[in-house]
């Protein structure tokens, strides 16, 4: 897939959020049309002679002019916000009103409010994420379908239903609303899911997955930069994303094959992102809140700051997983904990921990469950058992990169090569 250029994704989100506020959420599709038209005209113009320096400001000015035209053309045909309805009837009041709607101060929280609007409580988490992908990250229906290995029709349905629910709200979510706190935690969750889909997801396209991580991080930074949204949990979410994303460059080799944590070249990790993540982690420690994001960020920080695999502080990591299990009990978390136990106390103890996980049968289809068993059996020198687990994992692999990674492990069993850890999750 050809990744979209640098302008489309960024500028579309900004313009769409502004125009949706200006036209009202019930006129979302009108706002979308105007954004597409604005961008199309800009790209055609800039093809002759280059992209101007202040392109963002120019695009917004162009969107404003189009909004004026739309109000003139549609003032009788369409319903706008009641407060706007009488203002747009006269040319005398229309222009100053629209100018005001596009003042920098009016524009500054638009994307944030759009993000909060997408996390409507009537929408399932996956629908919230799909809306964020579509409206704030500029992903089309087909791209989203590819990310989730879902059908275009299913994604289309999910998004159009989501937009209908948004439209019923009539205006973007107010950041001062009294249900701000629950909405913020829905936003955290959606951004976390967005990031995880990029980091661990099923899609085969490394470019797109890196882009998902980048977009999730961009939106998390947006939260950090806006006072009411910059809570301790927000800092933890941002920290987690930085510390994980920092390790993305070491996670695959030149041809895109996954590399297990133990074998990664740590000099390829992004030191700047690690520093940023650690700074966020520190800021997340103000206050008494200890969310799942705090714990996951702390675990990511342990890995990111160990200069060699052998220096990893497994004891502390096990402790953090123990706490994480009380906040968010899940077999995947328990599996990762078991792998840390194996590092700390040996593979037999790791296997015992895995056996003790309640609900582990829910991971039957998760390739890295079978792979984890394979790793530990291999380290116990039960090579045939290990091979059987790896073969099962290989059958479950969700994409080519996983398939190649697991096929290599099956081969390694022939050579008896041990020693991969942390659920073998690269």
């Amino acid at each position, binding site marked *: 897939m050809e990744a979209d*250029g640098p302008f489309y994704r960024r500028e579309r989100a900004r313009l769409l959020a502004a125009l949706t506020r200006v036209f009202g959420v019930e006129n979302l599709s009108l706002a979308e049309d105007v954004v597409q038209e604005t961008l199309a005209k800009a790209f055609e113009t800039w*093809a002759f002679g280059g992209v101007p320096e202040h392109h963002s400001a120019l695009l917004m000015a162009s969107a404003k002019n189009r909004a004026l035209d739309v109000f003139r053309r549609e003032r009788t045909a369409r319903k706008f916000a009641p407060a706007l309805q009488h203002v747009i009837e006269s040319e005398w009041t229309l222009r100053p009103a629209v100018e005001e709607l596009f003042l920098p101060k009016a524009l500054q929280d638009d994307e944030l409010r759009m993000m909060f609007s997408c996390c409507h409580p009537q929408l399932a988490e996956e629908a919230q994420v799909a809306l964020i992908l579509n409206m704030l990250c500029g992903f089309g229906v087909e791209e989203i379908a590819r990310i989730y290995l879902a059908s275009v029709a299913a994604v289309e349905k999910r998004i159009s239903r989501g937009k209908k629910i948004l439209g019923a709200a009539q205006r973007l979510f107010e950041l001062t609303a009294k249900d701000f706190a629950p909405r913020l935690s829905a936003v955290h969750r959606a951004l976390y899911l967005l990031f995880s889909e990029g980091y661990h997801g099923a899609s085969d396209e490394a470019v797109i997955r890196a882009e998902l991580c980048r977009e999730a991080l961009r939106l998390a930074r947006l939260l950090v930069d806006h006072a009411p949204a910059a809570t301790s949990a927000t800092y933890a979410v941002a920290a987690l994303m930085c510390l994980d994303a920092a390790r993305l460059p070491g996670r695959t080799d030149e041809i895109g094959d996954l590399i297990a944590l133990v074998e990664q070249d740590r000099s390829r990790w992004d030191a700047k992102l690690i520093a940023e993540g650690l700074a966020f982690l520190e800021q997340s420690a103000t206050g008494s809140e200890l969310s799942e994001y705090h714990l996951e960020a702390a675990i990511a920080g342990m890995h990111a700051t160990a200069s060699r695999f052998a220096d990893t502080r497994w004891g502390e990591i096990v402790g953090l997983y123990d706490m994480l299990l009380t906040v968010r009990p899940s077999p995947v978390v328990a599996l990762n904990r078991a792998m840390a136990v194996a590092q700390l106390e040996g593979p037999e103890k790791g296997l015992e921990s895995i056996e003790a996980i309640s609900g582990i049968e829910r991971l039957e289809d998760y390739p890295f469950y079978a792979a984890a068993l394979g790793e530990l059996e291999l380290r116990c020198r039960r090579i045939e058992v290990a091979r059987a687990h790896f073969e099962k994992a290989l059958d479950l692999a969700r994409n080519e990169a996983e398939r190649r990674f697991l096929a290599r492990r099956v081969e390694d069993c022939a050579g008896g090569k041990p020693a991969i850890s942390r659920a073998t999750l690269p």
Partner: protein
Amino acid sequence: MSQFVFLYREDKTPSPQELESRMAKCLVWFKDLEKNGHLAYYGHPLNRTDGGVVRDSKGSVTDGPYAETKDIVIGFSVIEAKDFDQSVKLAAACPLVASGCLIEVRPVLKL
């Protein structure tokens, strides 16, 4: 050297994403022309949706010049080339052609 007007024609409207990737390629192509002394005038992109053809001195306006095609002129440039053959080679390398546009190449009339 002679001058040639390139008239870019297209019969569909690409998506903004397509237009962005086209833009990036066009900028490279224009830069190359400029560097090699082939660009007399960048010209302009033209509005696809508005405009028309004036038919008579009373000012009757119709949509397009031709009945048989919906191609419209979406832009123009003025190119320097040593002859028609060379101008055609330059046009063939234009990313607009690769993305489905036509280029009408017209030599500027000389005495």
